[in-house]
């Protein structure tokens, strides 16, 4: 599903963000991306979203070299990749329902599709009672559920999560991880960048550790730190 072929990413000013990254992630995998700040986790996700382009090497998603996509094809790539962030990126002037519907509306889905899919997904994330609330009226965990609903409503092949639990307390984090796990079980490939040692240790999924842009560990049922 995802393939990095000897990828290097150098930003302006010779800042090396990724160094000879060569990995493959199969369809339906759940992968934790760990490592200290500045180790290249965000760059890894940005390359997948085609927010950035690899300096050398190839990034393939579903067999396509996305570094060579024309800019007009980037939207169709992103329709297949859902995205969740630490800061949720919800629109404050729209209700829960509208925030999720917006994602379908702007990719031109017909109204009847929107009116059936949005309630379904809000039910899945457990927010069917909060559809008319505004983000400011929700807890952090609920806001992240809305953002996951928005990322997943279009049934993408891949879900990227950049520190999705970074702003949440431990109890809420467990709920979000259950939700991501559930989404993963539908066959969606999930890549999650995180600092949270406890969830990595608890989930026992594949762990990719980055350090100064290099993959220093790729473990099938890993924990957060080596030897802990």
């Amino acid at each position, binding site marked *: 599903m995802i393939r990095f072929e000897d990828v290097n990413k150098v930003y302006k000013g010779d800042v090396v963000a990724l160094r000879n990254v060569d990995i493959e992630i199969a369809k339906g995998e759940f992968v934790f991306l760990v490592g200290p700040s500045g180790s290249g986790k965000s760059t890894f996700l940005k390359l997948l*979203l085609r927010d950035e382009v690899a300096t050398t090497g190839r990034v393939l998603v579903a067999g396509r070299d996305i570094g060579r996509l024309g800019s*007009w094809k980037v939207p169709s790539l*992103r329709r297949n990749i859902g995205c969740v962030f630490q800061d949720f990126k919800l629109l404050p002037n729209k209700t829960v329902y509208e925030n999720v519907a917006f*994602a379908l*509306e*702007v990719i*031109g889905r017909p109204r009847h599709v929107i009116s059936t899919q949005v309630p379904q997904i809000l039910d899945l994330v457990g927010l069917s009672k909060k559809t008319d609330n505004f983000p400011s009226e929700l807890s952090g965990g609920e806001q992240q559920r809305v953002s996951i609903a*928005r*990322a997943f409503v279009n049934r993408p092949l891949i879900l990227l999560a950049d520190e999705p639990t970074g702003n949440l307390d431990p109890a809420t984090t467990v709920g979000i991880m259950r939700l991501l796990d559930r989404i993963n079980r539908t066959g969606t490939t999930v890549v999650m960048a995180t600092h949270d040692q406890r969830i990595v240790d608890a989930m026992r999924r594949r762990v990719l550790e980055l350090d100064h842009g290099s993959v220093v560990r790729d473990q099938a049922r890993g924990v957060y730190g080596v030897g802990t």
Partner: protein
Amino acid sequence: MISRFGYFTRETVISLRRNLMMTIAGIITVMISLLLFGGIMLIARTFDHGTAKWKNGVELEIFMNVKASPAQVEELRAQLDNDKDLVQSYRFLSHQDAYEEFKRIFRDQPALIESTTPEVLPESFRVVPVRNELTEEVKNKYETAPGVQQVVTAQEQVKRILRAIQFVKYIIWGMAAALLASSLFLIVNTIRLATFARRREIEVMKLVGASNWFVRVPFMAEGIVQGVIGAGLAVGVIWALKNLISNVLKNRQDLFQSFYVTSADAFGIGVLVLLIGFLIGLIGSTIGLRKFLDA
């Protein structure tokens, strides 16, 4: 498709209202610049009609020297009579005829008429050539005839007036262009503000894979709406100006009787003005969006 149209309409209206002051400023500058532009076009058309009439009934005026002898006048008359290849017809204006015309032209200035006597006004022949193109030839032939002071062609007069008009037109056109440029910048700025105000939404739209066009259309519509409304207002004023010109020129018996402007002229100019307004809006919003399109 219908829901998409509804979406675009809604977003455009919201955005226009959010930047109401900028929107109004944009509309007004578009209106004023296009008004200048269209107004000049309209007046130019009026003059075109007037001068076209002059050009068609081209008359040459062969002015005799004031002191030309009657013999010289008769000689020239004979020459014109026999010049069937060039001269279709002619009319002779005696000193007295010239004085009558002088009195008519300067009817508002009795002092000038009083101080003038028929003898100081030259006699002249008003010649209509066989064909318009022969005007120059007639002029060259008779310019050097004995007793002739000068040959004035209508075209020369027309050209002189047109040159003056042209000069004024250039100045006003320059002003219109400057205003048009500033209205363009205003629209660019409005669109930049609009994209900034909606940067969160744009971020989300790009994230979930909205096509570039989908993101752009409401903003482009916003720019185009400004351009077209401004142009529409300008067209309204131009139409009023057309009626004003028509009223002023109606029933005129003097020099301006051949000046007029048709509804077709005003319509053509109106369409052109609307088109320019549309283009200004389109170009302005495209430039305004350029920065965010790169990302």
